[in-house]
């Protein structure tokens, strides 16, 4: 029965006496789009930090394709095929947009300690970088210094960088924050396309996006998953209505 690519059991995280994660159980299936919703302070970002290796859990297990990854380094987890974006834009602000994406692409080609070839001469990397630029509609901005772009453009860049490693699992932390309606629409469509055949876990506050994009939704409240199910199931769930959505949100 277990087709989960990422499975989390009894995950706990405390900061001093404060327990942020209070026994989270969650499964991400191989090719599903899974949204994580919950009120502010529920621990959504902390959960992302634990999965991606930014933080080590206090207890519990995180399995990626059956392998325990809890407490491993971010780079080790990334190399297994899990990439993430950040809630607060996390790019190389003084480098060009092209350079930002190229740095992300290089890793997949095994280029790290290489100082004997010239990067500009690597056609494969250049083409893949240009493909990603086109995908997130930033071709015209290739030579722009990333930190000087509009906030929503930086969010798009962040998505391109996350996709660069061709990951099996993508974690997106509020990718549409600060975007206009048109940009949100485009980005939602983009996420739908690029996550075809991959697993996506997304934290997002725009409920239209959440309900139209996701195959399943989990609701996180005070460090515990109180419900997981299809959008319809979540809409009809009484506990969720009470804890989070409120009557007026659910149609």
């Amino acid at each position, binding site marked *: 029965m277990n087709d989960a690519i990422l499975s989390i059991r009894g995950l706990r995280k405390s900061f001093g006496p404060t327990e942020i994660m209070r026994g989270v159980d969650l499964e991400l299936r191989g090719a599903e789009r899974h949204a994580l919703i919950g009120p502010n302070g529920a621990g959504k970002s902390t959960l992302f930090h634990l999965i991606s290796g930014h933080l080590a859990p206090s207890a519990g297990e995180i399995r990626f394709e059956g392998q325990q990854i809890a407490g491993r380094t971010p780079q080790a987890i*990334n190399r297994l095929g899990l990439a993430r974006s950040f809630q607060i834009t996390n*790019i190389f602000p*003084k480098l060009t947009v092209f350079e930002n994406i190229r740095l992300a692409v290089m890793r997949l080609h095994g280029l790290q300690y290489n100082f004997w070839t010239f990067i*500009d001469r690597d056609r494969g990397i250049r083409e893949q970088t240009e493909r990603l630029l086109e995908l997130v509609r930033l071709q015209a901005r290739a030579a722009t210094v990333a930190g000087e772009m509009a906030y929503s453009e930086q969010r798009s860049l962040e998505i391109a960088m996350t996709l660069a*490693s061709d990951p099996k699992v993508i974690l997106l932390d509020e990718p549409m924050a600060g975007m206009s309606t048109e940009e949100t629409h485009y980005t939602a469509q983009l996420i739908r396309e690029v996550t075809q055949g991959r697993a996506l876990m997304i934290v997002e506050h725009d409920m239209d996006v959440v309900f139209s994009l996701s195959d399943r939704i989990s609701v996180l409240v005070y460090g515990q998953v109180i419900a997981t199910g299809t959008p319809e199931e979540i809409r009809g769930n009484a506990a969720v209505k009470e804890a989070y959505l409120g009557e007026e949100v659910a149609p």
Partner: protein
Amino acid sequence: MRPAIVSLRALALAATGAALLAALPFLLTQGLLNAAIQMLIAALFASAYNLLCGQAGMLSFGHAAYFGVGAFGTVHAMNAVGGAGLLPTPLLPLAGAACGLVFGAIAGWFATQRSGTYFAMITLAIAELVHSLAPHLKGLFGGEAGVSTMRMPAWGLDFGSTLQVYYLTLAWVLVSVGLLYLYTRTPLGRLTFGLRENSHRLRFLGYNVHGLGMLVFALSAMFAGIAGSLQVVSNESANYVVFDPALSAAVVLNTYIGGVKVFLGPALGAALMTFFGYAVSDLTQSWLLYQGILFVLVMMFMPSGLAGLGGTTARLRQRFDLARIVPLVALSVGAALLLSLGGTFAIEMLQRVFSQDYRAMARLQPAGAWPPLQFLGRAWLPAAFATWAVPAALLASGAWLAHLARQRLRALADAESASAAGANAHPSTRLAAHPGGTA
């Protein structure tokens, strides 16, 4: 077609520069040629340092350690095999490079465990460790007398003259700086900028940030080792004073005065400061004070360093036509000149008034009398108003010119934003925009 790694224009400039440096011995006296060797070595050391500091964003306060390790590695390589040398003389810097690389990898493994202030403190501690250990290890570092050696003839050259040493140094510096430039075009070179900008993000892109940092550190130490090696080849001796913190400080100052954002900035800064040190140290006893003042002024008024001046001028030219910039530049240069003349005058007078010689002389005088001072071929009375009126007038007129230059710049900017307001341009952001990280 393969994309060009170095543009034709840059290549032409580099070739011209190399040709000029190669022609230098025909224009210089023996003494100046010796100074030129020191300038080249300092330029390479600063370029090596900037790989770590400017490109990777890791501020090391102890780079003298790697320079010194390269120096001692070389002196022992020269004395090995009964004085015949481990390597032929022209290849000796390889010994310095190897020692710098190995020691840099070890020290870098520790230092790059942390970043920012903690990294700086670890580099400082490692340098201090070597500095305090060196006098005790007489076998290795030769005690106070140091270790001396001889350059051996090789490849049909005797390396007996300054001229031959100059060309050997020049060749190694050009090749090393060239390699350091090409390095910036490699995957690791691009990741080095990534380390500076956001090492946290690199980690989540799958990179081993500690491994990268350690490798950059080791490479920087390797080139510093080559610089140390060249100094030993030139001096035919090595002394543990190379581990002195003053050398670590000098390379930081030179690098920043030159400008960390431009590839050749640190080399330029180091060459200029070494030259000034050479030229001025005979004229004044306050050279270190001037060096410090210069550093503070550069950091306050042009944080992008001397090399940043080129960029600023280019941006001004882009915005305004030449006819309006020339008076501005003339005013600024005039202000700088008057201010430095006034400042130098005041410092030199004060230095003489407070010197021990003068104090002793003053004590011999009847009470309250201040004997005249010799300065610039004239006698000045320290107690006379006229004496201090000279620097005061220089400083005041310099400040006036600086004020005028400022006003003019503001008027230009206002005029531009007024005319561009309709076109919806943002001159202020364009002025602030400083594209870094591409050098």
